[in-house]
């Protein structure tokens, strides 16, 4: 009665990207701890937190599942030198989003040394060069000045606002088009 003949859907490994200082990789159960720790803290208030460990795990499952539903997604960022897990950066397009975005979340202690810039740039290169996106945005909470500043450093310009039913109003930062990034 049982057939283990074929294998479906989830065999595609999430690609591993390497930047100068960081490794960007797919999700594992070892990420539950850093996720739960970040989402328990006040710094998560721009991204739907603080929230319980149980809900943080659901968020982690959502990020992992996004890859298989959309064919792309975000990555966990690891420090090459220390192996420390620094954040969750990459491509994000859940139902209800106005268009695909480049997003970044840095865990506690990972700020202030260019982690988000370096990995968000790698994410954008992947979106433009591998996925052939012809445009990209980043959605940023209007009170999140750090992320607004990072958007500007990446060459993005303010392009209106998006009001989400549950997550509230976010600024839309529009990235340069692929030709401008390559130039």
């Amino acid at each position, binding site marked *: *009665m*049982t*057939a*283990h*003949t*074929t*294998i*479906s*859907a*989830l*065999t595609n*490994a*999430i690609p591993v990207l390497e930047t100068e200082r960081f490794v960007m*990789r*797919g*999700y*594992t*159960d*070892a*990420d*539950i701890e850093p996720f*739960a720790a970040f989402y328990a803290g006040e710094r998560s208030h721009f991204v739907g937190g603080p929230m*319980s*460990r*149980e809900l*943080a*795990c*659901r968020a*982690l*499952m*959502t*990020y*992992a*599942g*996004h890859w*298989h*539903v*959309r064919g792309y997604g975000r990555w966990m960022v*690891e420090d090459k030198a220390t192996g420390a897990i620094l954040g969750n950066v990459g491509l994000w397009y*859940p*139902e*209800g989003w106005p268009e695909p975005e480049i997003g970044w979340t840095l865990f506690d202690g990972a700020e202030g040394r260019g982690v988000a810039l370096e990995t968000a740039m790698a994410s954008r290169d992947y979106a433009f060069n591998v996925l052939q996106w012809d445009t990209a945005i980043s959605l940023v909470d209007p009170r999140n000045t750090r992320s607004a500043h990072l958007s500007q450093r990446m060459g993005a310009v303010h392009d209106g606002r998006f009001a989400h*039913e*549950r997550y509230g109003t976010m600024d839309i930062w529009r990235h340069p088009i692929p030709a401008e990034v390559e130039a």
Partner: protein
Amino acid sequence: MTPHVVDVPVLETERLILRAPQASDFDVLAPFVMSDRANFIGGGVDKDISHAWRILAILTGHWPLRGYGVFVLVPKDGDAPIGSMGPWYPEGWPEPELSWTIWDANAEGKGYAFEAMVEIRRYAYAVLGWETAVSYIDAANARSIALAERMGCVIDADANGPDPDDVVYRHPSASEVLA
């Protein structure tokens, strides 16, 4: 830390194919999540389509995190999915569960869930190596209670579920099922 590269087996029963969740399942899953039939599993008429999408991502994302997860049921005489069921162990669950959900109301009452769950339980015991399994069922969910009883489950009054309203049904053990 190397992420799991997950091979999701395709199981087969007399009338069903059991496979990994995929993007196209959203067409059937979304209306279910946004209906009152989903009240027992965190859905409901107050939920929007973005919530439904996240449920699909979560069902799928469980696989790479745990190395196992729920299967989607597709009848061999059709091509639309009718539900999802199988091993489920998110953070906050006291122990790994065997869960079941029929998405399509028209697929109820035909014994599909029983047929799939017998095979999935065998898989959990024989392939995943589980020695015991529970199913967490809302005390008001008469249909699921009937299925649990049909599968030989008994109430385990000493065990707790993730929700205070859950009744914990314990399945016959691996040695009993595989005997």
